């Protein structure tokens, strides 16, 4: 089907590959961009390229970072002995909004999901074990999403990865909507879940 000029189709294809953007949305965005000023279009293109060139993953915690380490890892005010394990950098944003957590993070960059071919070896789990072995960490809070895959990843880390270490392992308190994502929980609920965390059973 080649209803549009070739460059428009290429853009629709590219946009359609982005998460959460279906063919209809891709089409709408492409035609919107067709109408905007060249200056505005270039600003968007430049922002994407600049992000790719200047932002990487933190070498320590795999949060997004400008440079080798992220803003949280390099902040001297953060408590380096408490580690919060999350699935994605966007979860850090959600937890930071609660203002409750003063420690540091470790991002797994995903979650165990055999149907998608993702096992522990595809996540930053080995790196987590190395950190717990090397750093002075007293508590690890498992903040994966309260859905099946998040729970299983937390269970794997607690029972298979952290068990040999002298470290307290805890999980967010219940009260979060089961099956949901951290990013959709409101700050108050998430803050309470963090404060009410309990030992992992």
């Amino acid at each position, binding site marked *: 089907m080649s209803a549009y000029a070739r460059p428009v189709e290429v853009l629709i294809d590219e946009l359609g590959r982005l998460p959460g953007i279906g063919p209809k949305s891709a089409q709408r965005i492409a035609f919107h961009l067709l109408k905007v000023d060249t200056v505005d279009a270039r600003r968007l293109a430049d922002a994407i390229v600049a992000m790719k060139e200047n932002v990487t993953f933190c070498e320590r915690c795999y949060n997004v970072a400008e440079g080798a380490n992220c803003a949280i890892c390099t902040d001297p005010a953060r408590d380096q002995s408490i580690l919060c394990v999350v699935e994605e950098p966007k979860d850090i944003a959600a937890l930071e909004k609660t203002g409750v957590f003063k420690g540091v993070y470790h991002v797994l960059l995903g979650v165990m*999901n*055999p*149907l998608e071919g993702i*096992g522990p070896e595809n996540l930053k789990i080995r790196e987590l074990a190395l950190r717990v072995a090397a750093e002075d960490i007293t508590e690890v809070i498992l903040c994966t999403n309260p859905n099946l*895959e998040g729970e*299983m990843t937390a269970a*794997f880390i607690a029972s*298979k990865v952290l068990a040999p270490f002298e470290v307290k392992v805890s999980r967010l308190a219940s009260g979060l909507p*089961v099956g949901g994502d951290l990013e*959709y929980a409101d700050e108050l609920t998430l803050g309470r879940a963090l404060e009410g965390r309990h030992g992992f059973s």
Partner: protein
Amino acid sequence: MLVTRLWLADFRSYERLELDLSSGLTAIAGPNGVGKTNLLEAIGLLATLKSFRGAPVESLVRRGAAAAVVRAEGIRDDRDVLIELELTRGRTRAQVNRQRLRRARDLLGALRVTVFAPDDLALVKEGPSRRREFLDDVLVALDPGADRVVGEVERTLRQRNALLRQGHGRLDAAGAMTLDVWDSKLAQAGQELTERREALVGELVPLVGESYEILAGRRSDVAAVYQRSWSQVTLADALAEGRRDDVRRGVSQAGPHRDELAVSLDGLASRTEASQGEQRTLALALRLSGHRLVTDRLGEAPLLLLDDVLSELDPNRAAALLANLPPGQSIITTASGLPPAPGGGELADQVLAFTAPGVLA
């Protein structure tokens, strides 16, 4: 919930439809192909979030439309209530009293239905998956929280089977550690679902016998036994013992997904030994017993949806079914019309006659 009014927009063949429903028996009449079943399907969808015909939700959106809307107005606990589902391709959104619910599944429990469909015969005649689904549907009607367990078991099994298949008959140490975690989840959720089903069967058995007697007009010995697919004490033990074999075959062989509800009539396996008429009556008796149990336990009868069941029954059994309909709201579709009421007069409190697709007389 008593449904007083139904709206459809871009649902199946209906572009727009709006109708009032009686609190008793409503008959939806009209020739085949006018979309009578679609109406029942829409109401069923509000109750269970799935099509009782097994159609994928995306396929319910009218061709060419972006979204379908099914909305019912009614009364529950003396209060007006409005429930609504919006179906788009890939997503279902639910509202109660115009408030969006966080998840569509939170709508479960707002409306309950019992469905009698022409292919209910399969409930007795076909493989065990239909009977397991029947049990799970009744569990969810009794307690919407059961939906979480059913969903967890299903999803855990899919993940576990994917993991088993990745090994191509083998399992390394890292794979075994991952499997441990999925196994502990399956053991917990699967055990819970099995025990819930077993308890349910215990409550259903006497009701199935009574219902069969009413419909068949004679006493018969109806037995229903829940058979686990494993013999060990716990599912955890069964998974541990069966692991090697599961890995080799790439499938999960023990768990609620392999269990059976064995139904027998006068000592003979109904699936293979009963006549088609007996099987049909038995299927109706199973549905009716689930309906009566939910009514007894919750103090409110589910809305009965009877899809073209009369055409499949002999006149005596059809009359017995209609004469013994439990009290409450019922909707029945029929191409041939209803028999007269036992004392004469109209059986239905309201007749909605379709003359053409979407066109009411």
